[in-house]
């Protein structure tokens, strides 16, 4: 994928985080944790004039209160951006509020239950091993470019019934929508249109060639009026599954490998005690939650004692909530066998990530297969780790060396 598109207009660098925060500032991208601690120490809710006015809850309690308050906070815009154009490309149910939300979500839930994910698991295991086969003999790789990036996109393509080889195109659209689109409306619109026409073709084809994949399942699903969903709703849900299902999990797997590359004790323990993996996955999800969502304030209210005014956006940082020491003892540490862990990596309330069971399965399988084949690895000091900007945080370059230090 190319980064040639300009990020203009560039934002001025932040000098006062508490009153002028910016989640696309390069320091936030590189290392957001001390910034969140500073904001949390200042107030449970902070505000910036950037992004036409935006709040950020900094504590777990304030994040939970907002996530559970659909009366004052709308999901119609789920990315904090420079502009707030009219919403044309809806992606139900993530952009839906009650009462539309529940029926739209219920359509998507059955294909993503843990049992449904078990059926997909062998394919994901095979995908991981095909990827590892291609680089293991080199003794090194960029784990983001060669491994983590490809697992979710191929898995979701497999579920949707579209060619896994189209994955690179999906990754490019998602980069244009979630990263470049924060500051460049034209790039976002063009990518969304291309994605729409891609799916329109697959929907048309299935009208004469029905199949048993997820696209057909959605086309056959009945709305609350008992009629099949119209094509626009189907396209919207497909857009959501693709956008939400790829760089999120790519980021989570990448951050987990980044942690294990830097933390030999945790790595060795997971190799020796594979039964620890479920707790480890949850802890890595807590400590390196990739996804920050957004809400729009519809009516004035008070959250954690702070007034919140209509017309502002809210940067709903589940990652920051998960680092709140009032909720998690030793919040700044990765405790690989943490027992009590009500983390909010998949959101809280009615918008709980519909793909959380898929993400967990992919992350578990990706780490298991990697550790089986490459139990010893470390960051390549000759390379540079880079992190994505904005809504989804994860490593985009992750240079690794295999084997123990010579």
């Amino acid at each position, binding site marked *: 994928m190319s980064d040639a598109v300009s990020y203009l207009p560039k934002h001025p660098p932040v000098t006062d985080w508490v009153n002028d925060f910016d989640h696309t500032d390069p320091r936030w991208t590189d290392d957001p944790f001390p910034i969140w601690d500073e904001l949390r120490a200042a107030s449970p809710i902070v505000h910036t004039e950037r992004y036409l006015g935006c709040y950020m809850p900094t504590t777990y309690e304030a994040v939970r209160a907002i996530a559970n308050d659909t009366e004052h906070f709308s999901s119609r815009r789920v990315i904090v951006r420079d502009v707030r154009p009219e919403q044309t490309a809806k992606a139900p149910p993530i952009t839906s509020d009650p009462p539309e939300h529940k029926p739209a979500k219920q359509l998507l*839930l*059955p294909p993503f*239950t*843990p049992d449904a994910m078990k059926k997909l698991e062998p394919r994901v295991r095979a995908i991981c091993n095909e990827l590892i086969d291609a680089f293991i003999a080199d003794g090194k790789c960029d784990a983001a470019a060669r491994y983590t990036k490809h697992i979710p996109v191929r898995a979701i393509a497999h579920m949707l019934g579209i060619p896994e080889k189209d994955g690179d195109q999906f990754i490019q659209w998602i980069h244009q929508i979630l990263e470049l689109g924060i500051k460049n409306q034209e790039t976002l619109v063009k990518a969304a249109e291309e994605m729409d026409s891609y799916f329109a073709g697959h929907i048309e084809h299935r009208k004469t060639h029905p199949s048993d994949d997820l696209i057909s399942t959605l086309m056959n699903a009945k709305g609350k009026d008992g009629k099949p969903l119209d094509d626009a709703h189907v396209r919207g849900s497909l857009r959501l599954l693709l956008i939400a299902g790829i760089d999120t999990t790519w980021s989570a797997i990448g951050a987990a490998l980044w942690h294990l590359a830097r933390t030999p004790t945790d790595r060795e323990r997971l190799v020796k005690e594979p039964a620890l993996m479920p707790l480890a996955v*949850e802890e890595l999800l807590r400590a390196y939650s990739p996804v920050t969502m957004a809400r729009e304030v519809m009516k004035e209210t008070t959250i954690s004692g702070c007034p919140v005014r209509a017309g502002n956006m809210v940067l709903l940082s589940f990652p920051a909530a998960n680092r709140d020491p009032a909720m998690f003892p030793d919040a700044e540490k990765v405790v690989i066998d943490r*027992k009590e862990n009500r*983390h*909010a990596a*998949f959101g809280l309330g009615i918008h709980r990530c519909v793909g959380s069971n898929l993400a967990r399965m992919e992350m578990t399988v990706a780490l298991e297969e990697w550790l089986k084949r490459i139990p010893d690895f470390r960051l390549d000091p000759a390379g540079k780790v880079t992190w994505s900007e904005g809504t989804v945080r994860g490593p985009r370059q992750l240079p690794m060396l295999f084997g123990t230090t010579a």
Partner: protein
Amino acid sequence: MAKLKIHVDQGKCQGHARCKSLAPELFELDEYGNAHEIGDGAVPAGLEDKAWLAQTNCPEIAIQVTEE
């Protein structure tokens, strides 16, 4: 040890499925992935720790554990 009983509040459960993963003997999921206690929620002897583990990992605080 006191007998425990569990209950999943359907008004709160959002289908994170942490309980099912941690204590599959005590919880089952419906077609939407939302959790329910198995049977009347009575926790068989020996599974008390799993009941508490599920309770303390539910992000929505939807699981009640009561001592009978």
